[in-house]
C-alpha cells in the first residue's frame, strides 16, 4: 500500500500525538490540527487522502467542518471519531457528509483499516467492478460465480457477499466490524465472534487442501485476502 497523506483533526493532544506517531510508523504522512478552524483551513488548502475528524472540536465542531468542506466541493474522504457513539450520532455524522464513523474508544488497527479503505476509495473511485481476481480465485458479480483454478466453488449468498467485500479490498486489512457493517448492514457489537465462524467456513471452502492460502487472519486486527505468491 502506498503512503497516504492523513490529516488528524483532534483537540486531545495526547490522542492526536499517538495517532500521528502510529500512522507514521505505518509509513504514512500524518499532520495534526488542534481545532476546527485550523483543521478546516488545512483540509481546504492541501491535498489529503483522508481526514480523521473528531466530532467535538473547539472553535468549529466536526460536523460543521465537514459540511463546510462539502459545500466547497472538497470531497476528501472523512472518518468521524466520536465519544458519543450512539445510533443516531452515526446517522447525523454520515448525513453531514462523513464517509465513515468510529466511536471512541477504538483500536488503532480498526482505525487504520478503515482509513486505508477510505484512501483507496479516493484513488480508485467508488465505482464497482464486476469481476475480482486474487491469485487464482475469481469472483464474478454478474453471474454470481466463484471459481478457484477454474473450478467452481458453491457458496451461500451471504458468503458470496463476504468474499466480494474481502476481494474488493484485497491486500487490505478488513476488520470484523467492517464486515458486519458492509455485509450485514448492522453496526452493533455481536458479542460473540460470529464473524470468525463465517470466515472459517468460507476459508474451508476456498482454501482447504490448497498449498497457497488466500484468506489470512491478521492478528489483533481482522482479515485480509491476498495473493501471497506475488
Amino acid at each position, binding site marked *: 500500500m502506498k503512503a497516504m497523506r492523513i490529516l488528524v483533526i483532534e483537540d486531545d493532544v495526547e490522542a492526536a500525538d499517538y495517532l500521528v506517531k502510529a500512522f507514521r510508523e505505518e509509513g504514512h504522512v500524518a499532520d495534526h490540527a488542534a481545532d476546527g478552524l485550523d483543521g478546516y483551513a488545512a483540509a481546504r488548502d492541501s491535498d489529503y487522502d483522508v481526514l480523521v475528524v473528531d466530532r467535538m472540536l473547539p472553535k468549529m465542531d466536526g460536523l460543521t467542518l465537514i459540511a463546510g468542506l462539502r459545500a466547497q466541493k472538497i470531497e476528501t474522504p472523512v472518518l468521524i471519531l466520536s465519544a458519543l457513539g450512539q445510533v*443516531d450520532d452515526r446517522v447525523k455524522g454520515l448525513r453531514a457528509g462523513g464517509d465513515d464513523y468510529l466511536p471512541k474508544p477504538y483500536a488503532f488497527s480498526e482505525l487504520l483499516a478503515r482509513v486505508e479503505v477510505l484512501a483507496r476509495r479516493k484513488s480508485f473511485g467508488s465505482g464497482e467492478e464486476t469481476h475480482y481476481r486474487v491469485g487464482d480465485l475469481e469472483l464474478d458479480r454478474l453471474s454470481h460465480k466463484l471459481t478457484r483454478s477454474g473450478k467452481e466453488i458453491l457458496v451461500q449468498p451471504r458468503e458470496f457477499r463476504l468474499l466480494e467485500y474481502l476481494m474488493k479490498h484485497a491486500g487490505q486489512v478488513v476488520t470484523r466490524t467492517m464486515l458486519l457493517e458492509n*455485509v450485514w448492514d448492522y453496526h*452493533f457489537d455481536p458479542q460473540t465472534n*460470529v464473524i470468525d465462524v463465517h470466515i472459517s467456513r468460507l476459508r474451508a471452502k476456498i482454501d482447504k487442501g490448497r498449498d497457497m492460502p488466500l484468506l489470512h487472519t491478521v492478528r489483533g486486527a481482522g482479515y485480509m485476502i491476498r495473493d501471497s505468491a506475488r
Partner: protein
Amino acid sequence: MTALGKLFRTTVFKLSLAYLCIFAIGAGLVLGGVGWNVKKLIDEQIGQTIDADIRGLAEQYSEGGIRQLVEVIQRRTRRPSASLYLVTTYAGVPVAGNVAALPEQVVGNTGLVEVSYQLSGEETPRHRALARVFVLPGGFRLLVGHDIEDRETLRGILARALVTSLFWLVLIGTLGGAFVARRVLKRVDAISESVRAIMTGDLTKRLPLAGTGDELDRLAESVNVMLERITALMAGLKEVSDNIAHDLKTPLTRLRMDAEQALRARTSPDEQRAALEKIIEESDGLIRIFNALLMIARAEAGTQPEGMSDFDVSEIAHDVGELYEALAEEHGVTLTVSTDEPVMVHGNRELVGQALANLTDNALKYGVPENAEVGDRAVTLEARRNGEAAELVVADRGAGINPADRARVIDRFVRLENSRTRPGSGLGLSLAAAVAHLHGGELRLEDNEPGLRVVISLPLSHAAPLMQSSPQLARAPLELRKAS
C-alpha cells in the same frame, strides 16, 4: 410573617372579602330601594288625603263662609290624632286650627311641603308633617297637614335594619372567611411541611389527605402517586449503581492486576505481551458494558433515536438467523428461522436487530445444555404477526427460567447462578427489554415446555412493505447505496 398576616394574604380570605363587599353593596341597594319606594308611596297617599281634605273644607267654606269652616275645623281638631289644620287671614294671623307655630314661609307656599310643627297648647317636641296651603276665595289661607312621624319611624327602622344587617354581614363574612381561610391555610401548611420534609430527603413521607375528596385532596393524591414513582425510580437507580459498582469493579481489578503483572521485573517479554493483550481485552469488555448501559439508559429515558423507519422484522429475523447460523452449527445446534409474510414495524432497525442478536446469543449460550439430546439442541427464531403486534420470538429447549426469576432476570446485571460462571455482562435481556419499551412494546419471557421463549412484542406499523424480495438480496451493500 405573622399568623394573622399570613391569614389575610390567603386567596380564600381575599375572595371572602371581595364577596363580602359585593353582598354589602347588594344589601344596601335592596334596603335603600325598599325605603325610597315606601317613602314615595306614603307621601303619595298623604298627598291624596290632604287634597281630599282641602276639597271638603273648601266646599264647607263656599257653603257657609269662614264661620262654617272655622266650626268644622274646631270640631275636627278635637278628635284624637287629628290632622293639622290652620286657617289664617291674608296677613297670616291665625283664625282657627290646632297648629301653634308654623314657619312664616310655609304659609306663603302653595305646594306640598314638609314642615316641622308643634301642636298648640302642648309642650310636645316638634313633629314633622307634610302640609299644603290652599288659598280660599276671599284671601283666607287654609293649611291642611298630616303627621309623618310614622313614616319617619319606618325609615328609622329600615335604616337601623340596614346598619344592623351590614354589621352582621361584615362580622359573619369576615369571621367565616377567616375560618375557611384558616382551614385551607392549615391544610396547605401541612402539605408544604410534608413537601419540605420530603425535600430534605425523607422520601417515605406522603402528603396528608383530609379524606374529603376535594381539589386539595386530589392534588395531594397526584403528588403522592408521583412520589411513589420517584421512590421506585430512586430505588431502581440505587440498585443499578450498586450493580454497576460491582460489575465494573471486577473487570477493573483484573485489568489493574494484568498491568501490574506486565510491569513486574521478572516478567519475560512474551508474558508482558500476553498481559498487555489481556488488558486490551478487559478494556474492550468494559467498553461493551458501558455502551450497553448507555443504550439502556437512553432507551429507558424514552428519547426517540433518529433513524426511525418502517422495516420488516421478518427480514431482521433472517439476517440475525444467518449471522448466528454458522456459530450455532459449530455448537452442534440447529438454528431455524420461521417467518410470516412481511411484518412491518416503525422503529430503529439497528436497535431491534441488536436486541434480537442479544437474545439469539443468549439462547445459544444458556439455552443448550452440554449433554442435551440432538432433538433438544435447537434454537428457533420466529417473526410473526399477532393481532396488532409484531412479535420476534427466540425459543430454545434448554433448562428455561423459573417463573419466579423471570421478572428479575430482565433487570440490569442480574445473572442467574448457573450462568455466573460463563462469559457475559448480564445486560442482554435488559437491553432487549429497553429496546422493546422504546418502541412502545414489551419483552415477555414464556415457558417453551421445555425451554425458554423470549418474545419481543412491538406495535405493528400500518405502512405497506416496500417490496417483497428474498431476504438475502433485499439490500445492496452499504457502499453501493452511498454511491447512488
